[in-house]
């Protein structure tokens, strides 16, 4: 009997190692495929040049790095105020029953596939930008707005958890001193929940920089360093997805190398989110 239990425990441990094992496999394979190219091109040439002509042997991804970063920052500008507002309203200013309905409803946004966001972006948002602001419409701005909406569920649900984790004693103490609800929220609750909210924002950034399909559909995919929010851009992710279908040889290696850069950025974001949460 004891032996059987021991055997089961070992078996379960093996199953439990599957996720870390998959993560290791992913890391190994992406690096095996992409790292040789970074070595032969030189890391500096790879990430600090914006000359991307893979068939002629030029592999510089600076323009895409800049585009990815700008699109992500744009998404933050749109998504963080909206998401935080929703979280504050749900956690602090709405009756319990309304919260019970609104929270799951807003979380439905997470279920909508990214291709659908991209599609609606092309149908509704892109023409608006083209007609009222100028440019081709497919742009940095369009991608930022769509991504800003897509990160809302991440920002909202993690921020709500952070806000509800603040003990009611804090609120009661502040209200008893004669502060208004908003003074309580802005000076007591938000600072107390700040590490959770920062985690929410970082995870939202990770989500935005890694998103592919929606960005391909609305960003215009032109290879350039944008000079205006109305310029079309090509991000790291869209470059991989657009070219992987026909790339071969060193070109394909370069796409995996792009994957490495993306992977490293996202792992740094995830790690810092984990560290911040743990410190709390």
């Amino acid at each position, binding site marked *: 009997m004891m032996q*059987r*239990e021991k055997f*089961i*425990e070992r*078996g*379960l*441990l093996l*199953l*439990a*190692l*599957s*996720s*870390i*094992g*998959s*993560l290791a496999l*992913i890391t190994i*394979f*992406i690096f095996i*495929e992409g790292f040789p190219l970074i070595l032969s091109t030189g890391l500096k040439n790879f990430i600090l040049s914006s000359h991307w002509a893979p068939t002629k042997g030029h592999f510089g991804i600076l323009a895409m790095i800049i585009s990815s970063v700008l699109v992500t920052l744009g998404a933050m500008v749109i998504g963080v105020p*909206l998401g935080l507002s*929703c979280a504050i*309203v*749900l956690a602090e*200013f709405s009756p319990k029953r309304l919260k019970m309905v609104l929270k*799951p*409803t*807003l*979380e*439905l*946004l997470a*279920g*909508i*596939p990214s*291709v*659908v*966001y*991209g*599609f*609606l972006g*092309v149908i509704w948002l892109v023409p608006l930008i083209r007609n009222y602001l100028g440019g081709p419409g497919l742009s940095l701005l369009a991608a930022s707005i769509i991504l800003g909406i897509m990160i809302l569920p991440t920002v909202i649900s993690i921020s709500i958890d952070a806000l509800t984790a603040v003990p009611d004693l804090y609120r009661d103490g502040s209200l008893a001193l004669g*502060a*208004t609800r*908003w003074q309580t929220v802005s000076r007591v609750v938000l600072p107390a929940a700040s590490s959770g909210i920062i985690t929410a924002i970082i995870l939202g950034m*990770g989500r935005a920089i*890694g998103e*592919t*399909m929606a960005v391909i559909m609305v960003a215009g995919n032109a290879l350039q360093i944008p000079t205006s929010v109305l310029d079309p851009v090509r991000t790291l*992710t869209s470059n*991989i*997805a657009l070219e*992987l*279908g026909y790339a071969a040889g060193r070109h394909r290696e370069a796409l995996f190398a792009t*994957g490495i850069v*993306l*992977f490293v950025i*996202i*792992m740094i*974001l*995830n790690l810092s989110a984990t560290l911040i949460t743990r410190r709390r």
Partner: protein
Amino acid sequence: MRLDPHTTQRLVKALLWAFTGFTLLILIFIIVDISIKGLPQVTPGFLSQDSTDMGRAGGIFPTIVATAYITALAILLASPLGVGTAIYLTEYTREGWATRIIRFGAECLAGVPSIILGLFGFVLFVLKLGFGWSVLSGGLTLAIMVLPIIIRTSEEAIKAVPQDYRTACLSLGMSQWQTVTRIVLPSALPGITTGIMLSVGRSLGETAVLLFTAGAALRTPVSLFDSGRTMAVHFYILAREGISMPNAYGTAAVLVISILVINVVAYTLMQRLMRRYS
């Protein structure tokens, strides 16, 4: 000039509610737009006929079969791994370095973007293992994608089962494993089902992973080694290449409504479980 705190509060509240209302409006707009333009396309024929002329005419039957096939495979592979992990984490070990590594793995895996998973599935399953663009490659890669979802929800569900249940079983002389299989898992089943349903929802909407692992052949896949175009990939191709807007909307309606229904049911199940034990 300093505003009186009550006036400030009124202004801020109005602004916050306006932003919340706007967010809700976006959600409503998405669902209404897709339903109004998509649902009229969704006839019994649309669901049961083969696609012809690259998807310009005919139905989406092959993509429904491919979606079901790939999703089922992914769930079949990921469920035992995910539930096993959750049992190990909650019932078989104390918090320590092992659990920390396992949780860290699951958390990081959840953060890996789908394009990276697509690259990985493409190089390992499609090229190195020689499965080609196939249902098998797609299902394997999707299984890795949904694994963290199943782990997280199952763990939450198993933790919700009251400790008394376990104590009672163990004091009756049942082994740990008997306690888990006869008492803990049946009590946590609704929550575990929630995790599986959320994974189905996530799989239905996935595109970037499948484009590079399952391919885009518009035929009904039969063997595990056949390429299959899922609904989401089909929708992407129809929309991006401007093949047929009505059919794109129709496919989107089927896709979005199935995902919403699945997510709502999954959420209700989990709520019921949490209420029962709290």
